[in-house]
C-alpha cells in the first residue's frame, strides 16, 4: 500500500494581482517503507511539495491521499490532527522549543493528541524515543546544553514519538557538519530498515541524497526525474570509514 498517493498536485500563490504557480501538476506515489530524497534548486517546487505532503498546506487542485485518506479538502484543524497522528517532522533548524527540556520537547506532540494519553505512558514513550536516538542520558537537558547533532536527534525523537506513518525531513543536515550529518542519516536508515518507517527527505546535498533508496528531482514546479539509487550509501559503513580516516 502506498503511504503517499498524490496526483496532479498544483499550488498557486496569489499575492494581490500577481499569481505564481509553484507546482504545475505533480504525481508522486510512495509505498510503505520507501526512503525518498527530494532534490532540486530553490524555486523548483520542492518546498511547496513538502508543505503539501506534510499537510501544512492545501493544494490548489489535485488529489492527495495519505495512508489512503484523501486530505486535500480538509480544514486547517483536520489537517492539524492528521499531522499530529501521521506525520513526523524534522526541520533544518531543529525547531525545538527554547528553555524546554528534551523530554518536554518530545512530549509536545503527544499533548496535542485528541485522545489523551496517560502521563505515565506518555513519559515512557518519550524516554523510549529519546533512547532510540541515543539520548537516553540527556532527558533533562535544554537545547542550549546540547550540540547541533544532539538537538537534531531530539527533533527526530519528537517526530517518532507519535509513531507516524511518514517521516518528513526538510534539510535535516543543513545545519550540521558532515560527520553529524552522516550520524543523522544513520538514524534515518535504521528507522527505515528496522521499523519500516517511510522517510521523505528534502536535501540539496547530492551525497546526502545517496543514503536514500530513491531520488526525485524537481525543476520549475515539475518532477524532472525519479530514479532508484544504484550505489546506495550505508551510513554505518560510512561512519566506520570516517573513524578509519580519523586514525
Amino acid at each position, binding site marked *: 500500500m502506498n503511504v503517499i498517493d498524490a496526483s496532479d498536485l498544483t499550488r498557486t500563490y496569489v499575492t494581490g494581482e500577481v499569481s505564481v504557480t509553484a507546482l504545475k501538476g505533480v504525481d508522486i506515489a510512495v509505498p510503505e517503507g520507501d526512503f525518498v530524497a527530494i532534490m532540486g534548486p530553490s524555486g523548483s517546487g520542492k518546498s511547496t511539495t513538502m508543505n503539501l505532503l506534510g499537510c501544512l498546506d492545501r493544494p490548489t487542485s489535485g488529489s492527495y491521499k495519505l495512508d489512503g485518506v484523501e486530505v486535500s479538502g480538509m480544514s*486547517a*484543524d483536520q489537517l492539524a490532527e492528521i499531522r499530529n497522528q501521521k506525520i513526523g517532522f524534522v526541520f533544518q533548524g531543529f525547531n525545538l522549543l527554547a528553555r524546554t527540556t528534551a523530554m518536554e520537547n518530545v512530549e509536545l506532540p503527544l*499533548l496535542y*493528541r485528541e485522545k489523551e494519553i496517560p502521563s505515565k505512558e506518555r513519559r515512557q514513550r518519550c524516554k523510549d524515543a529519546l533512547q532510540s536516538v541515543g539520548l537516553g542520558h540527556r532527558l533533562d537537558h535544554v537545547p542550549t546544553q546540547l550540540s547541533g547533532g544532539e538537538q537534531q536527534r531530539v527533533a527526530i525523537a519528537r517526530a517518532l514519538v507519535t509513531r507516524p506513518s511518514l517521516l518528513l525531513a526538510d534539510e535535516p543536515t543543513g545545519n550540521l557538519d558532515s560527520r553529524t550529518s552522516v550520524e543523522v542519516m544513520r538514524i534515518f536508515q535504521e528507522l527505515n530498515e528496522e521499523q519500516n518507517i517511510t522517510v521523505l527527505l528534502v536535501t540539496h546535498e547530492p551525497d546526502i541524497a545517496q543514503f536514500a533508496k530513491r531520488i526525485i528531482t524537481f525543476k520549475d514546479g515539475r518532477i524532472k526525474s525519479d530514479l532508484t539509487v544504484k550505489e546506495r550509501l550505508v551510513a554505518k559503513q560510512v561512519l566506520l570509514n570516517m573513524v578509519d580516516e580519523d586514525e
Partner: protein
Amino acid sequence: MNLWMVFRISLTALMRNKLRTFLTALGIIIGVSTVITMLAIGTGAQRSVEATIASLGTNTIMIFPGSSQSSGARTGAFGASTLTVEDAKEIIKQCPAVSNTSPMTQINAQVVFQDQNWSTQITGCDVSYPEIRNWAIVDGRFFTDDDVRAAAKVCVLGKVVIDNLFGGENPIGATVRVKGIPMRVIGQLAEKGDSAYGQSQDDVIMVPYTTCMKRLQRQSNVRYIMAEAAAKDQVDRAKKQINEVLLQRHHIQEGEDPDYSIRTQAEFAETANQSTQIFTLLLGGIASVSLLVGGIGIMNIMLVSVTERIREIGIRMALGAKRKDILRQFLVESIVLSLTGGAIGVALGYGLAHLAAKFSQWPPVVSLQSVILAFTFSLVVGVFFGFYPAFKASRLDPIQALRNE
C-alpha cells in the same frame, strides 16, 4: 486536549521567561493593590464616620430651633431661639416613645484653675444627657436633679480640659473659675474621641443647663433639645410624637412651616454615609484606572509575546496543535498572568492598607467585596486583553510561522 493540559502548557511557557512574566503581572499587581488599598481607606473612613456618629448615642433625636419663616426670609438652623426648657419637659411628658430629653445650651468660655487657663466649650444640659449620649463618668459623679434645680455651681470635665488644666492631678473637688464664677469639679467624663467633624468631643465642660442659663449666659435660650427614643425601632414614632407636641405648643397652623426641625441619628448617619461613599467611589475609580492600564500592559506584552513566539506557534501547529489549542494557550497564559497578579496584588494591597493606617487615623477595612471585585476585575482584564493576541496567534499560518526567524 483537556484544560489541565492547556494550563500546564501555558504555565511552562510562562515559567520559561520569568522576567517578562513578572513585568507583565506587575501592571496587574499595582492595579489590584491600588484598588484594594483605596477601597480599604475609603471603607475605613466610612466606618470611622459611622462609629463617630454612633458615639452620639444610638437612638438620639435632636430638635433644632430655626427654619422659621418671618416675612419670607428663612433663617437657618439655630437662627431663632424658639425652643424652651418647657418644650423639653412637655416632650418627655407627652411622648411615650421618648425616654429622655435634655435642653441644651452652649457657650465658649475661658476656664481658669490656679495659674492655668483653657478656652473650651461649656455645655449646659440636664441630668439625663450622659444616658442619651451613652457617655460614662469615669471618676466622681454627674450632677443631680437637685443640682439642676438649684443651678448649682458644679461641673463635669472632659479629658482634654483636665489634661490642660490639671496636668495629671486629680481634678475632683477642685474649684475652677468659669467666666469668673467658681465652680466645683464633681466628675470626669470618659474619653469619647473626635466627632464627625474632627473636633475633640473631650474638650468640654458640662454644667447643669440652669447654671449655664442663669450664671453664665444670663438668658434662657435653649440652643437645641436632645431627646432619646425608648428603643431603636421607636425612633420614627418618637420623632412623630415630638413633632405633634411641638406643633401644638408652637401654634403652627396647617400649611405653615414649623419653627424648629427634628433630626434623627439615622438621618445624620445617612448624610455622612453618602459623602464617604462618594469618597470611596472616587478612590476606587482612580484605582480602577491603574487596573485598566495594567490590563493594557498585559495586552501589549501578549502581543509582543505572540510576535516573539511566532516560531514556537509554528512548531506547535506543525506538531498538531489546532487553532483552538493555540487560542486557549495564550488566553490561559493571559488569565494566569492576571489572576496571579491579582492574587499578589490583593496581598500587597492588604499590606499597603495597613501601612496607610499608620499614617491616617482611620483603620483600613479590607472588605471581602473589594477583594472579590478586584479579583474579578483582573480576571476580566485577563480575558478581555488576552483574547485579541491569542486570536491573532491562533490564526497564524504554520508555514509562515515556521519560516519566521
